[in-house]
């Protein structure tokens, strides 16, 4: 390594890895990232939303009434349109993650957090898998292969689904935008960005708490020190950033045209058939298969404040978390008389749900394993159905308990 580079590294490390300054700087960096996710993305999101509304209006006016019009307006524009709107936020989030990765800061963040993680029964080696889990739990769980100790690996696998993956962003931002007023704290901090940052922190605290509880039940209390070589600092390459962002955008678009389109189409079938019987007075969706299922399971979720529409959205949402948003878009578009309603899901739910219901759904999404692919990869990585059962069981239990507490407390306070 050239002497000059080494000197620069030492000077930067002196500040960024300082025992007193290191953690506050890390928190400040992450805070700025989530502020930017909310504030920078707004113009692009408004543009996509307006385009979807225009497209929905055009389809409604042009196509004659019938199944095809309902499919395009409710399932495609109402469902997929409500997810595609979050593309700018996902790109901005990954822009910052890629910069941190390229600059050589991420391994230093692992080093900084090693002490904190060891107190929670983890090692610094768990940092990279857990950080990857913020993109998606699947590569995060696969990245645990670099953890040699089986005990640490299993703990990391079990808490990886608690990290706030990018699939949760559409759900969180939909609810935050619908229920949190757009205002500034101290004149320059976006309140919505602050709440989103808080959701990430809650996920991390949840994961570390579960790990701490697991460590209390361990027989082997030995610690495994983290040994790693820190790379030199370097300026991120614009080309590498562009390629990385392009890949993330492609992954998101592939999910929209793949799993989200597939699930949404099947959901549209269940919300449309069987049709409204002659002489029936209620909305058509009440007589559909999805309506019947939603009403049947609604009593189970009533104590946590979920209405039957949310219950319907949770089922396809098991395929992928962000499907719940498109599913809500489809359910409300099918049940509403106005087709344009689908492109304004946020304003619709803010008028129909209580704050307690919205916060309860957010609490549910912090913990619930609403992703079958994650459970499948846990099975593959651990070679054990028991691990899948334990992980899904404790996550669903935590989700229900925290959603229940959130709903009951907020209902009583408001």
């Amino acid at each position, binding site marked *: 390594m050239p002497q000059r580079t080494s000197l620069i590294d030492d000077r930067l490390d002196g500040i960024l890895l300082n025992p007193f300054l290191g953690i506050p700087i890390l928190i400040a960096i992450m805070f700025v990232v989530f502020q930017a996710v909310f504030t920078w993305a707004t113009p692009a999101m408004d543009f996509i939303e307006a385009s979807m509304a225009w497209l929905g209006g055009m389809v409604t006016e042009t196509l*004659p009434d*019938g199944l095809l019009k309902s499919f395009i307006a409710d399932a495609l524009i109402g469902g997929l349109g409500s997810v595609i709107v979050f593309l700018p936020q996902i790109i901005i989030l990954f822009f910052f993650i890629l910069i941190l990765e390229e600059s050589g800061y991420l391994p230093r963040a692992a080093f900084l957090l090693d002490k904190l993680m060891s107190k929670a029964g983890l090692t610094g080696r768990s940092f990279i898998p857990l950080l990857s889990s913020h993109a998606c739990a699947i590569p995060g769980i696969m990245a645990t*292969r670099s953890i040699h100790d*089986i005990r640490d690996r299993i703990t990391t696998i079990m808490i990886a689904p608690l990290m706030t993956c990018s699939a949760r962003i559409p759900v969180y931002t939909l609810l935050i935008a619908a229920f949190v007023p757009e205002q500034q704290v101290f004149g320059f901090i976006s309140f919505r960005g602050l709440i989103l940052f808080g959701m990430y922190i809650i996920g991390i605290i949840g994961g570390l708490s579960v790990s701490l509880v697991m460590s209390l039940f361990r027989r082997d209390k030995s610690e495994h020190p983290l040994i790693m070589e820190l790379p030199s600092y370097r300026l991120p390459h614009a080309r590498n950033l562009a390629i990385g962002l392009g890949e993330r955008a492609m992954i998101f678009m592939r999910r929209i045209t793949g799993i989200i389109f*597939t699930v949404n189409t099947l959901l549209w079938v269940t919300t449309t058939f069987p049709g409204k019987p002659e002489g029936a007075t209620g909305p058509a969706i009440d007589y559909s298969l999805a309506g019947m299922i939603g009403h049947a399971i609604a009593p189970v979720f009533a104590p946590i404040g979920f209405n039957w529409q949310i219950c319907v959205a949770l089922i396809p949402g098991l395929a992928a978390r962000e499907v719940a948003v498109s599913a809500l878009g489809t359910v409300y578009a099918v049940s509403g008389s106005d087709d344009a309603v689908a492109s304004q899901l946020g304003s619709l739910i803010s008028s129909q749900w209580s704050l307690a219901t919205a916060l309860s759904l957010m609490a549910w999404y912090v913990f619930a394993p609403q992703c079958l692919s994650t459970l499948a990869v846990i099975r*593959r*990585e651990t*070679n054990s159905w028991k691990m899948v059962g334990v992980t899904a069981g404790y996550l669903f239990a935590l989700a229900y308990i925290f959603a229940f507490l959130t709903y009951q407390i907020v209902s009583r306070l408001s």
Partner: protein
Amino acid sequence: MMYAVIQAVIITAIVAFCAVQMLRRMMPKLSHDLQIRGANALRHAGMPGVAQKLEPVEAKDDGCSSGCGSCKGCALSELKR
């Protein structure tokens, strides 16, 4: 009337495609078995060309990206004990 038929055909095709995709994703083994059975039935019915197209493509390489699960954490088998 004609429009109703056309839209029913389009919707049926899209829904059938999505149902197959969902089956492949959620129940890969069942989907694989169904493909083999369907291909055999078509071969018996004298349509070997269609049968060959329906037959599932077997993964040839055994790298981590092949989806074969050759590196599925065998080291963790002691967990089962």
